[in-house]
């Protein structure tokens, strides 16, 4: 009797193992760890068609999850798309493989946008803690998309737009003197709040010491945030439930494109809600990097090279809505400004307005602060929220 059951158990076990072995199909594959809906399926199709490499995508919603996924080694990804500070952290911990530029011929044909160069310059300026020497991050990373942060605001509040343009960060953080009844939201990422507070205080958002921490705490308390969220921030400003929030510019564009789809005009939408991008603001750049666990370096390089093609990068930007990183791709995007197709026209217009390559300002990408500092910042934010 027990034997029979054992037989069944064995069959079940074999079936289980077989299914999982089946999952590892034959043929070359590219395991990509990405943000959700951050890659145009058309690009995937073209890539698969051209190189015969199947793209398997996993998604996660934060750099920290990328990190823990790679660190835990539970899956060998060939390509990951983390942001700037996470690239630093990964390089710092020897988690990335240096790129072979021989395999990236398209690289020589592109010029990065000013903003992107600024970010890279800033990243290169930081010093690696372990080796004590500066590293050229371009050895490890190729830009994918980039973007700024800004303050999305409810334009139905009288005078808010003017006040923001005039006084910038003060309007957002100083709730005592500016719009005391307005509701303010902040991204539910402690370091974002900390960095924003430092920019408001005129400090470098990547500096860290206990004085700054206390100052930032006071500033954040002064802002009296009513909401700590992620994707809900933009929706709440859009629907008149929230007045200001510090978000990705891409968050605004996401809602903008959706409303354009509904048939509204850009003017109408902007008069409902808009985004203010301060002169000094945070920026991010998502990069294609190859983690040390990668098994198919060839495919990874092919993919990077493929996306460096301005046409492909523009095509990718078409569905994703973040800012392309090369001037060549940017030119393709903005060339649509005279397009009769409303979508292409609006797309070009939005890029020129919100991601203009000639925008002046100081852009700070976040730095990978040491664990203890991050922990202290997290604790500080939690303290504010538990008071």
């Amino acid at each position, binding site marked *: *009797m027990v034997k029979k059951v054992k037989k*069944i158990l064995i069959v079940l076990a074999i079936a289980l193992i077989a299914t999982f072995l089946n999952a590892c199909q034959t043929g070359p594959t590219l395991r990509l760890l990405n943000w*959700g*809906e951050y890659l145009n399926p058309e690009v995937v199709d073209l890539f698969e068609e051209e190189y015969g490499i199947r793209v*398997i*995508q996993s998604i996660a919603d934060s750099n920290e999850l990328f990190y823990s996924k790679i660190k835990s*080694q*539970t899956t060998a990804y060939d390509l990951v798309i983390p942001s700037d500070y996470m690239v630093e952290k990964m390089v710092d911990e020897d988690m990335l493989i240096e790129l072979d530029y021989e395999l990236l011929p398209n690289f020589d044909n592109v010029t990065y946008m000013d903003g992107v160069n600024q970010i890279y310059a800033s990243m290169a300026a930081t010093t690696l803690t372990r080796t004590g020497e500066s590293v050229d991050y371009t050895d490890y990373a190729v830009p994918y998309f980039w973007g700024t942060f800004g303050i999305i605001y409810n334009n139905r509040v009288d005078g808010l737009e003017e006040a923001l343009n005039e006084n910038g960060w003060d309007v957002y953080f100083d709730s005592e003197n500016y719009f005391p009844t307005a509701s303010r939201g902040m991204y539910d990422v402690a370091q974002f709040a900390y960095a924003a507070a430092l920019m408001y205080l005129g400090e470098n958002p990547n500096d860290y010491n206990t004085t700054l921490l206390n100052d930032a705490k006071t500033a954040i308390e002064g802002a009296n945030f009513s909401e700590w969220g992620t*994707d809900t921030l933009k929706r709440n400003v859009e629907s008149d439930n929230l007045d200001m929030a510090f978000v990705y510019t891409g968050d605004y564009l996401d809602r903008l494109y959706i409303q354009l789809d509904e048939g509204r005009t850009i003017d109408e939408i902007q008069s409902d809600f808009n985004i203010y991008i301060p002169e000094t603001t945070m920026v991010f750049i998502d990069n294609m990097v190859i983690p040390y666990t990668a098994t198919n370096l060839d495919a990874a390089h092919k993919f990077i090279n493929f996306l460096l093609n301005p046409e492909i990068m523009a095509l990718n930007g078409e569905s994703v809505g973040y800012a392309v990183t090369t001037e060549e791709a940017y030119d393709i995007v903005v060339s649509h400004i005279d397009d009769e197709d409303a979508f292409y026209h609006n797309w070009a217009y939005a890029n020129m307005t919100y991601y203009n390559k000639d925008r002046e300002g100081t852009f700070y990408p976040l730095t990978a602060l040491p664990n203890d500092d991050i922990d202290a910042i997290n604790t500080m934010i939690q303290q504010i929220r538990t008071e």
Partner: protein
Amino acid sequence: MTEKRIDYPVATLEEYGYRETPAYVKKIIKVLKSVLTYLVIFFLYLSIIVIAIQSLNSSRVMSAFDHVSFQWYPNILNEPELMTAIKNTFLVSSIATVVATILGTFFAIGLYSLEKKRRQQWMLMNNVPILNADIVTGFSLMLMFRLLMPLFPNIFGLFTLVMAHLFFTIPYVILNVMPKLKETDPNLMDAALDLGVRPFKAMLKVLVPAIKAGIFAGMLMALTMSIDDFVISYFNTGAGFDNLSVWIYGVIGRRELTPSVYAFSTLLTLFTLVGLVLYETLKNNKKKGKLWLRK
């Protein structure tokens, strides 16, 4: 005979020491009771109703309803990532449910045949995966599976996901089957064995039908828990094998969720409800019984 009735005075509650509740009070209480019951059930379903409304909204602006549109339903098919996630969910949840149901039934029978004291100890253990915090379970299982990686480098994915789901679904099956086992006549199996039926056959032919209700209930719970889980899945998936909940969490990072997700959720709920109603109607027609109706 009615005349006879008139002859007798009617006995009242008062003369037996009880207060008569006025009819209108009774009525009010009755109405209040059903109102409250339906209100609670309505609130249980409130979030689902909102999801259904969102799925019918022509606009992707979630705070305002534009007009009714079914566009998001066929659009499910146009979202390759969503489709993959749905397929993965079905694959993982159905494998996990079927395996958990079969194994859970065997295990429950096994545990049931232990001595009482032993059984109680193991049933206690059985509760740990159910009651443990998801994040602890998810993380500790991942640690476990990582130990296997030197042997099977590609273990993370379907296999680990199914194993992790088995970890918390089997206890639910056992919990549902065990009470049914206790209700069965202890002589049932002996009688079958006495008649010369082989133990395994006896189990399948005699015991399993007797505990069918428990097995079904356990299966349903297992399926629900498997579909609903995010945290444990998150830690134990890999290699692009994202189920729906992992996918939904992931998408929020950079982009807006497609309303087709709402459409899918609504479909799933509707199909289940319609299936249930159909099943009950058919059964009632067949038996002409009134299981479902109030007496």
